[in-house]
């Protein structure tokens, strides 16, 4: 009888704690524990059949499929805007300088690399709301950028260009290129010559890629100043940021970074 009271009193505590967790994995494991305590309560209430079913289905099977579905640990989730030569799909695999750096970093830390392509404007939100670990894809951190996100050290120098005020609209080409998000918008506008109506400035990698894809880019002016590409990592992921900074420092002192840059931007 005492055992039953103790277990019954334990149930709301376990339930409250597990449903108040902010990490999904903790909540799911808490619910697994809850189901197990519940199975013990059923057993003490003289319902062995229900106890066995609850323990196998509620505690084991449901927990297993939820953990399989959210399996995030051991995984490096990257959200990126697609930029050719930095990080972009080529056939069924991904290439580019940033991809190579991230791939090496994931391999060294023993994590599965998983890349999702999203429009550039969604990258900071996804990082800040724990939906991804690292944001990539031609991100140029500005000096005053702060908040919940911090940029990593730069891995590539770049230039930023502005448009002159003139532009003449042209027909939009029928073939929309197979890029996702921001870059495909730029390319559509670039080919019709209306790029200056949607953006005020562009970085070097995008300018080069747009030029190769046949966009109209006459008369760009280079802005003076030191700019460089970096990744975005949330402020609370201090360890991840430190590990990445160490990795990048080793990469550049051993000269591998220069080799990679030469290979992708010959």
């Amino acid at each position, binding site marked *: 009888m005492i055992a039953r009271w103790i277990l019954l009193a334990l149930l709301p505590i376990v339930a409250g704690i597990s449903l108040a967790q902010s990490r999904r994995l903790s909540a799911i494991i808490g619910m697994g524990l809850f189901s197990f305590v519940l199975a013990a309560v059923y057993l003490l209430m003289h319902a062995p059949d229900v106890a*066995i079913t609850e323990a196998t289905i509620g505690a084991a099977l449901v927990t297993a*499929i939820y953990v399989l579905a959210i399996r995030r640990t051991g995984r490096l989730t990257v959200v990126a805007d697609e930029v050719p030569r930095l990080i972009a799909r080529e056939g069924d695999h991904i290439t580019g300088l940033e991809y190579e750096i991230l791939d090496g970093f994931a391999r060294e830390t023993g994590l599965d690399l998983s890349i999702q392509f999203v429009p550039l404007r969604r990258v900071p939100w996804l990082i800040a709301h724990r939906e991804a670990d690292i944001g990539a894809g031609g991100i140029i951190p500005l000096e005053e950028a702060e908040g919940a996100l911090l940029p990593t050290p730069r891995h590539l120098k770049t230039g930023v260009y502005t448009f002159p005020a003139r532009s003449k609209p042209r027909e939009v080409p029928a073939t929309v290129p197979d890029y996702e998000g921001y870059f495909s918008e730029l390319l559509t506008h670039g080919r019709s010559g209306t790029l200056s109506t949607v953006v005020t400035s562009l970085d070097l990698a995008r300018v080069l890629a747009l030029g190769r894809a046949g966009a109209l880019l006459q008369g760009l002016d280079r802005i003076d100043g030191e700019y460089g590409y970096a990744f975005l990592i949330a402020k609370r992921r201090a360890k991840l940021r430190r590990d990445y900074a160490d990795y990048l420092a080793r990469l550049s002192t051993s000269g591998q970074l220069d080799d990679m840059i030469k290979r992708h931007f010959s």
Partner: protein
Amino acid sequence: MTKDRVQTILAVGIIVAFAALVGITYANSHPHPADSQQYLARALEETGASNRVAGIYLNYRLFDTLLEVLVFSVAVLGVRHYLQQSKGMSLPTLSESEVVQTAVSFLTPLALLLCSFFAIFGHISPGGGFAGGVIAASGLLYVAIAHGMKAIETRLNPWRLALAEKAILLSLLIFLLVPVAVGRIPLSDLLPKGTPGQLLSGGSILIYNILIAMKVFIGAWLVIAAFAQHRGEL
């Protein structure tokens, strides 16, 4: 009125209604209803199963259980269908340490043994087909964790498993229709009841339990395999 207000009012209403339901039911439930004990005494002779729970849900309420099996099948079908549509990732190449592999080589036969015990003795002792099938599926999950999904997929083709699941469901339905051939209503039990407590007792409950265990084993494994192939999408 804002959406949040409506939601809060609904939630409070549901909680109050449930409190009323719990209170009224609890106040009106009798600790020792005499009818219920007589009903229990008759049930033992009528079903022949000494596990009375099994006697109820595989004899008196067999139709309920049949629909429960169908709901489970529909869920398996839905999970496989929708996960196949979404772009999957390559099979996880998990390969654990030797400690895990040794433990699994001991645990998986144990799980399969427990599964057969629950299925075969479901009408005498606690257990039953559903619990047994899920335990066997989790035994396969151990193998998948220790040796990787590929080791299982090469031996157990998911397509053939899905076919076998449907074949078992069909044979269960045909078995339930057999009484029509001898002029009884469907779902009625033709086999002798036997002495309660013996292995061969309880009429068809033993057959139902074994069929359900096999079906749930395959179904639960197909669900686990589908989620394992699409792991980490959330």
